[in-house]
């Protein structure tokens, strides 16, 4: 069993990247130290019981001095409360949770991110580059608009990672889906693909990777009541049709071929 901690971290920064995208940095050394790219934390959004349940967010970045960052879009009650967090208040975190990306690709890498799915790929990109013998890494990042994508492109490029972009409205890079950027690749490149984003994007990317014969890992999202493999509420049909896997325990990252794409 992988080690998990419950830690209350002081919020030291709340950044608003767009009208509905925020980044929160909290001091949580124990969790930061244990975290691996692709893992997530369960965040308690209110001190009271409404909202009651914790919300899952992938670990966006960790820093040497024990800071943990989450990047999120306001989509409902919990994220709305979180967006109103004041610096100096405490953020109640449980983590790191789940199984992240494999960290020894030993082949050139494509980081394929869509929307908030880009969040864990920054941590992964940084981790891969810190390897003694880092593999060549390219990031294919997509979002709806330039305004949503640019801040994340800047962060990725700051790591020294080449970024190719795609936006639904064509305001930045390719006018279309990020999956399009893989389609006409040379199979011989034999890249390891790490994909995270909306379900349809991951389904398409895993199909293209399969066609190219490339290994591909995807990070799935399901409703989560606990994130601690206690409630069994995060089931996902097994690829082999025999019962369920549990995304918070067996994932969230899965080899693409293991996923029974619906």
């Amino acid at each position, binding site marked *: *069993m992988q*080690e*998990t*901690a*419950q830690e209350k971290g002081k919020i030291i920064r709340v950044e608003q990247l767009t009208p509905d995208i925020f980044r929160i940095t909290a001091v949580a050394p124990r969790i930061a130290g244990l975290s691996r790219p692709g893992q997530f934390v369960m965040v*308690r959004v209110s001190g009271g*019981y*409404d*909202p*009651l*349940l*914790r919300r899952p967010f992938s670990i966006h970045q960790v820093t040497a001095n024990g800071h943990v960052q989450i990047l999120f879009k306001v989509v409902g009650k919990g994220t709305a409360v979180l967006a109103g967090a004041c610096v100096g208040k405490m953020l109640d975190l*449980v983590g790191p949770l789940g199984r992240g990306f494999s960290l020894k690709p030993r082949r050139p890498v494509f980081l394929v991110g869509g929307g908030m799915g880009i969040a864990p790929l920054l941590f992964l990109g940084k981790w891969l580059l810190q390897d003694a013998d880092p593999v060549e890494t390219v990031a294919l990042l997509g979002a709806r608009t330039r305004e949503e994508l640019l801040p994340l492109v800047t962060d990725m490029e700051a790591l020294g990672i080449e970024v190719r972009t795609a936006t639904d409205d064509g305001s930045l890079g390719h006018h279309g889906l990020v999956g399009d950027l893989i389609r006409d690749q040379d199979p011989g490149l034999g890249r390891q693909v790490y994909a995270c984003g909306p379900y349809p994007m991951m389904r398409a990317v895993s199909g293209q990777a399969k066609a190219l014969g490339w290994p591909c890992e995807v990070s799935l999202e*399901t*409703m*989560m*009541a*606990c994130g*601690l*493999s*206690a*409630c*069994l*509420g995060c*089931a*996902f049909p097994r690829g082999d049709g025999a*019962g*369920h896997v549990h995304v918070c*325990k067996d994932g969230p990252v899965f080899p693409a071929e293991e996923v029974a794409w619906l």
Partner: protein
Amino acid sequence: MALEHPDMRVKIGGLTLINPVMTASGTFGYGEEFSSLVNLHRLGGVILKGISLEPRPGNAMPRVVETSCGMLNAIGLENVGVERFITEKLPFFRGVQVPVIVNILGDSLEEYRLLGRRLNGIEGVAGIEVNISCPNVKKGGVAFGTDPEMAAAVTSVVRREFSGPLMVKLSPTVTDITVVARAVEDAGADALSLINTLLGMAIDSKTRRPRLANIVGGLSGPAIKPVALRMVWQVARAVKIPVIGIGGIANTTDALEFLLAGATAVQVGTANFVNPRASEEIVNGLAAYVRDHDLESIRDVINGLIV
């Protein structure tokens, strides 16, 4: 004089717990999942995911949804089945000094009987909690727990096969819970645990569909505490056997309220998701309460409500 180690022991049938705090079935996995967050040996007892004779895949997704101060679940009693439970899950507790009470479920009297028999005398099984909120497929899916006769029948069927401490878990979806409680007491239960979840539903007005694939689900969490407390109070005055309080317990004050209402012990459920250390914190909180109030033991609190 404040005791260094206050006397927190409570008795349920033949089983003495070191303190009244247990975990509720289905909210603590198979126990191992919480081992890095909670010191399991400090709990009074752990009750694990409900076990059926054969493994069950559980319902389609979505299985859980949040409500105001609560949640609905329609997990569908997914579990590994009694055989894999005994060989794969129970062994973990050989290294952990905490009583394990096995929650069992079935959709016929025969299944309950076989489960009682299979678990009887198994090393590491400190007791059985019978979940009678399951639908009786032979009676058109009406839940065993909603009919006093059926509830009594399940109890006596398991009682005959299992000699250890036998707890029966009552369903709240009844007109008068004291009637079912007395029927189950007469059928030989050592203790009653209540309440299981309330039957509820959630709808997404955008998609015009139920939020649970199963349409209806079990409501749990702080929202149901007032109903659970009232039922524990009613049942504790209607039966002589110990009553175990369940329903929205998240902190020491909640636990004290259930003990005052007549519960001998409590189970912490949904709160484990919100605060994984809730159960251990409540053990510490109750111990501090006994010390600060110079009580003989936690048992002084049981049934202490001044009415």
